[in-house]
Structures are given as structure tokens and as C-alpha cells.
């Protein structure tokens, strides 16, 4: 204490605070864009239960463990759970939303290329949590 000047510390704290403001502002802006569900997105009802996923499309078709979607369309996923907490995740499209019993959470995405991606549960949900997986199959109807 005493005998030294404090300005290096003030400058340093100023830089840290400025950095945090910048990170916060960028994150806020990005999140705002990400949360805006495009109009005309098709709704898919996603249900998690120990230990698999089921999907119901707008036209009533149901799928278990596999989700077929088309390139170029936007989809709004309504996430439900029948028993305990799960978390619906398509890592390749940064889709992540918890499935909580008694609640409906929504998240959206729009696949860009045809292909297959992993779906997995990311919230610990008991014995087979490690293998609560599924496949996202993106099809290109024009191809």
C-alpha cells in the first residue's frame, strides 16, 4: 500500500469493463436475431421421454427417433416432455432447447444443405441418457 500510483489499475479496469460491454452488446444483438422466428415457419411438435424423441409434423405424420425436413424451409420446434427434463439438441445447427414437463419451449431452425445430422439429449435424464439419440435427415426435394 502507498508509494505507488493507481493509474495502471484504473486503465486496466476500464479496458476490462469496456470489453465486457462490447461482448454483452454483441451477444444481445446476435440473440435478438436468432430468436426472431421467420414467418410461415412450419411447426413440428418434438416430445422427449425416457429415452427417445418423437416428432409430429403439421400434417399429422409422426416419426420416432428420426426427423425428416426439407432444405430451404424454416421450422419451428415445440419442445415437450412426457416425464423428466431432457434437452433437445442438433449440434450442427446450434439448436438447443430444454424439454421440461409441464412447459412448452420453442426454438427454430432452417436447414441449408441436404444431409444427416445427429440429434442428442443434452440434459441428464437417467439410465440411457447417454444413448438418447436421433437423426435429423435433411432432404432436397428438387434434387
Amino acid at each position, binding site marked *: 500500500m502507498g508509494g505507488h500510483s493507481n493509474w495502471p489499475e484504473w486503465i486496466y479496469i476500464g479496458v476490462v469493463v469496456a470489453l*465486457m460491454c462490447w461482448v454483452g452488446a454483441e451477444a444481445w444483438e446476435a440473440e435478438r436475431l436468432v430468436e426472431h422466428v421467420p414467418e410461415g415457419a412450419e411447426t413440428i411438435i418434438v416430445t422427449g421421454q425416457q429415452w427417445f424423441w418423437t416428432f409430429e409434423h403439421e400434417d399429422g405424420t409422426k416419426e420416432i427417433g428420426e426427423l425428416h425436413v426439407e432444405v430451404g424451409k424454416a421450422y419451428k420446434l415445440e419442445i415437450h416432455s412426457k416425464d423428466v427434463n431432457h*434437452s433437445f439438441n442438433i449440434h450442427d445447427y446450434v439448436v438447443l432447447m430444454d424439454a421440461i414437463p409441464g412447459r412448452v419451449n420453442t426454438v427454430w431452425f432452417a436447414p441449408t444443405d441436404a444431409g444427416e445430422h445427429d440429434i442428442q439429449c443434452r440434459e441428464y435424464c437417467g439410465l440411457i*441418457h*447417454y444413448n438418447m439419440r436421433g437423426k435429423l435427415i435433411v432432404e432436397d426435394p428438387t434434387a
Partner: protein
Amino acid sequence: MVLELQKPRPIWQIMFSTHHTDVGLLYLISSLAFLFLGGTLALAIRAELFLPGAQIIGDAMTFNRIFTVHGTTLIFLFIIPFASAVGNYYVPIMVRYKDMAYPKLNAIAFWMIPPAGALIWLGFADFTWYATPPYSIISAPGPAADMWIFGLKILGISSVLGAINFIVTILKCKHPDMSIGQVPLLAWSFLSSSLIILVAIPTFAAALLMLLTDRLGVSGFFNPAMGGDPIAYAHLFWFTFHPEVYVLVIPAIGMMYEIIPRFSRKPIYSYNSGVFAFVLLSIVGFSSWAHHMYATGMSFTEKTVFMVGTLAAVPASAMHVFNFVATMWNGRIKFSTPMMWAVGGIALFFSAGAGGVANAAMPLDFTTHDTYWVVGHFHLFVMGTIAFGSIGFLYYMFPYVTGRMYNETMGKIHFVMSFVGTVLVFFTQHVLGLYGMPRRIFDYPPIPEWIAMNQIATVGAMVIGVSMAIFLANMIYSSGKGQLANTEDPFGVGGKYYYPFEAKNPSH
């Protein structure tokens, strides 16, 4: 202390003693025992994940139980009691009082730990250290889950009692000649973390009771089938446990504040900014709990509020780092073992903090949440910062406790191996998270990147394991046969050491 090995007393005299050094010794020994027990489970987890498929653990249930008990043990039975051990030895001396304010309460708080530990270990629950409902209500098998709940309940009471004791000792029992602005930073760290405990733990105590009655079927607070809401539990849990991470980290920072100036042979750069940052952290720590819950379906506004609250804690942590670096600057640094651990811990603290900023930014969190990134991130804190600070301080207090010197070369080997191992395990886990590997999984698909990363992490964990064996050997051998330490200045850095004779035990 010291003296046990030089002037042996019957073991029951230490066990039934209420003197702060005896209680500190009990805390120290039990927390180290749990460090090794919990560490063994970590090695089992890592060995299982070395390759995809079931190898040594064999089934998912056992695996889930192992990681639950590993986490619970190391957080509640190693880190927290270790801090209490240090506090018991040093806080009364630092405020120049003869003992803790309530010595009997102090001993009682310690003796709650062994039964709690026994409940947790014998139960072997599987619902992770969050015990999230509704899984913990409707699916987690009893009596394991109930034993875990009771164990944690007892530990909560124990830490509240300990916190009251520290607060009263520091505020009421300090020497009248000493103003609060002269209390050493280590004691300040105990003051701030104890205040957090008093505010935070009762919330979790309530949540645990509600969880228990839900399990018994008489209430439905968190059970949607009975009209409850699982998210309410998440709020109560994180309202306690986000601030609780500061309870863990603040004493470790306090320990570094003892070590860094001593071995830099310079006074601390800014005492005031250290105090300020402790107080700030313990307040701001409460403003960020829901950043663990971005993916539970919170509104955009809620998410924004908690992101701001989280980012606000960063400058306070950054002030400590600045203080450390500024203290070492131009110092005549002596890299004895405690100093190496402290400096290594600061470096890892910095990297963990940088990762934390990324987690706080809400859109980024969706790539990392509940993946191995998170495992890597919080382990950089718990292992890289808190355990490093604690182990460094353990070496520092070794001559104080035993009156002998540990083997310096073995201490340095221990440090180098642990540091390399920590980087190998936990940096790699960040990468694994970016590749999308979820946490808490017993088995994983044979994706080449995942296999490679898991193997590096497992090798790193084994390196840490070996270094810990060296550490154990060093501690046991040196406390009995090590060279007698120069109790006035055991590390040869000049200046004042806290002499054992300042803590005269009445039964010596």
C-alpha cells in the same frame, strides 16, 4: 498440530478437542481423505471414457452414480472443508484471538461432516450433483437419493455454523488495536465467503426439504404431475450454487494473497483493491444465477438481465489477477513449491475466466451448454484455480502444522505433473465440447475426433493421478521423517511467518 508427531498425544485427545488448531487438523485430514477418494472416482470415469463401449465400469447406472458421487465429494467434502481447515488455523491468529469465537460449535460443525460423507458414499445416488427434479422425484431410486439429500442437508447446516463462527470471530473477537482495515486479506476472504453462505445456503436448504417432501409424495412443489414446476427448483438451486462457486474460489484467492507477496518479497500491490474485489464479488455473485438456465425457455429479457449480471462479476475477478501480477512485478521472487502452485493457479484462473465470458454470452452458450466444454470450464476453476491455490497453501502451511519440511523436489514434480495434466484434461475437454460431446454420458459413438480427445484427457488424468501419489508419499514421509523446519522462516524468504507458538494449544 506440530507437535503431534514430536510430542504424541492420544488420538482421542485431538478428536475431542475444541481448540482451533485441533479442529483445523481434523478438517485438514478429512478433506484430504475425500480428495483422494473423489479423485479415484475421477480416474475411473476417465478410464471408462478412454475408448467407446463399456470397459471397466461396465454399466451406465454405476457410471452415473460414480460421477454424481465424484462431484458431490470433491465440492462438498474436499474443497469446502479444506477452506475451513485453513480458516481454523489462521483466522484466530490473524485477528489475534485465542481461539474461534465458539469453539464447541466449531467442533460440532466439523463432526457433522463424517456422517454426511458416509450417507453420500453409502447411498451412491445417481441424479448428478444438481439433483434436478422431476428426475430426482419420480425416477431416482431410493434410498440412495434420500441419503444424498440428508447428507447435503447436514453439510449445509455444518457450513452455516462454520460461517457464523468465522464472522463472529473476525468482527467481534479481533484484537481491539486492530481495525477492520488491518485484517489480513486471507481473513477478509473468510468474512466475505461466510456472508455468502449465510445468504445462499438457507435457500438450498428449503429446496432440499421441498424435494424430500415431493419424493414422499406429500407435496408437489417441483412435480408437474402435481401442478408443480421443475424450473422453480433450478432457480432455488442456482441462487445458492452460483454464489457458492465464489464461496469456493474466494478463500483460494485469499490463500494466494498470503503466498504471492511472501514469495515476491514485496507487500501486496493494493490491499484496498483486494478487499474491494472480495466484497464486490460476494454481492455481484448473486446477480448471475440464471446464466445456468439460458436453455430452459427463459424470455429474451430475462436472459439479457442475467448476462449483464454475469459480465458484471468479471472486472472484480480481473482486479485480483491484476493485484497478483502487480505484486510479483519487480519482486525478488522465490519459486518455492507454494509459489509455483499459486502462480500456476492464477494462470489457470485467467483461462477459466476467459472461457466463462464466452459462456455468459447467451448465443454462444447454446453451442457449449451441457457439453464437455462446461466440464472443462468449471474444472479449470475447481481444479486449476481452487485446488491449485489450496494445494499451494497446504505446502505453505506444512512446516507450520508439522514442524518439519516437505521434500522440495517432490513438491515441484507434483506441481509440474499436475499442471501439465490439468492442461491436458481440461483444455481438451473444451475442444470436445465444441465437437458436441454431451456431458454425463457413459458411452459415446466412435467419432475419431472424440476418441482422440478423450484419450488425451484420460492420459492427462493419469498424469495427475501419479502426481497425487507422489504428493501423498511426500506428505506422509515428511511429516514423520522430514527435516526439522526453521519455524521462524521455513522458506528462507525473510519476513514474518505465522509461528506455531502463536497458536499455543492448551493441552500441550
